């Protein structure tokens, strides 16, 4: 059973029609392990069990290191205003629409060329994030950003064609930690970034492409940045708070 809960931690002023969903994917991950023939560890506590232990509070699950998956639904314009805020550009620059694609709701963005960055409302420290994306006719750079304070201070993993760049922007100055090519395709892709201590990594479809190191930054927002023109679809965004053992 997958526990689907309303996105109470990030959503403000919304009604039931435009709610996105946040799914605790711990059990989903466990299911995948079972399918691969791996037995769950003894004493492993699922996200749902943790939620019961801590009063079913979404925020608490994230604090305890659970995974959360954001899935779009409802109206695109209302959704993007409720679940995100902009640190660059506005909803008018991306014309968000929620569409059904092969039975799944996806958020389609039509960028007009203005740089746009939208982030979840919560701030995170060590973080892992996976965005399921598909470029339609988009030409430009798509970035997953994290530790973002504003447009002049953030960290990123960006893709442009078959090039992936990993780095940070501090006071408007870009510093690239690592840059590498990957096998680009026109299908759905899974762009993953992890920021663990002083180690930063970028993955494409679970394959490590970039790995760099830098000073640890203060906690900040996580989200998506588009610099280019055309359509992009987002199927889901998974967030995991990384914690020391």
């Amino acid at each position, binding site marked *: 059973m997958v526990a689907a809960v309303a996105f109470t931690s990030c959503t403000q002023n919304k009604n039931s029609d435009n709610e996105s969903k946040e799914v605790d994917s711990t059990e989903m*991950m466990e299911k995948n392990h079972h399918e691969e023939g*791996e037995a769950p*560890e003894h004493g492993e506590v699922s996200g749902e069990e943790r939620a019961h232990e801590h009063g079913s509070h979404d925020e608490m699950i994230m604090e305890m*290191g659970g*995974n959360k998956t954001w899935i779009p639904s409802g109206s695109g314009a209302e959704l993007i205003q409720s679940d995100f805020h902009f640190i660059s550009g506005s909803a008018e620059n991306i014309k968000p629409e929620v569409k059904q694609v092969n039975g799944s709701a996806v958020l389609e963005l039509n960028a007009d060329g203005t740089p746009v960055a939208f982030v979840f409302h919560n701030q995170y420290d*060590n973080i*892992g994030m*996976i965005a399921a994306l598909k470029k339609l006719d988009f030409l430009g750079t798509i970035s997953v950003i994290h530790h973002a304070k504003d447009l002049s201070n953030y960290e990123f993993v960006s893709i442009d064609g078959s090039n992936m760049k990993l780095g940070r922007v501090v006071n408007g100055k870009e510093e690239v930690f690592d840059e590498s090519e990957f096998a680009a395709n026109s299908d759905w892709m899974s762009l*993953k970034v*992890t920021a*663990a*201590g*002083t*180690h930063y*990594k970028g993955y494409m479809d*679970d394959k*490590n492409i970039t*790995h760099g190191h830098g000073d640890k930054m203060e906690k900040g927002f996580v989200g998506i940045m588009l610099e280019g023109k055309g359509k992009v679809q987002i199927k889901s965004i*998974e967030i*995991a708070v*990384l*914690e*020391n*053992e």
Partner: protein
Amino acid sequence: MDILLPEWAPNIHPMLIHFPIVLWLVAVLADLVSLFLAKSWLKNMTITLYMLGALGAFAAYLSGSEAIDMVSVPMQAELTASNHSDWGHYTFYFFTAYAIVRLFLFWKQWDKKKWLAIMLFILGAVGIGMVAQTADLGGKLVYKYGVGIK
């Protein structure tokens, strides 16, 4: 080097990591015994073990740096992987510096002074703590998160 790898092994790192652990541990034990038993063969053996331990740490460091980008790391294990990597670096630097110092003191025969020999033994024991911390994090990556398991 990969041609020497068994088919089931994800990379050479797990084959090498046990060398610095065991060599350093035995070196410190030999150091302890030599505090009470002043035999030149024991001292020679101790220094040799520290040298080999440092070489083993270098091999583990190099292979680990390569391995971390080859294996699939679950998101929840990334911080453990990061800490394992950091401790691996610290351990390698410590082992190398310590082995060089021990070789120099051995060459000068200053390590025959009792107080210095005790200090060196204590420092060597610190190295055991460092390698234990590195190994603990590495063990979690494999046995808790399944990193490197095909």
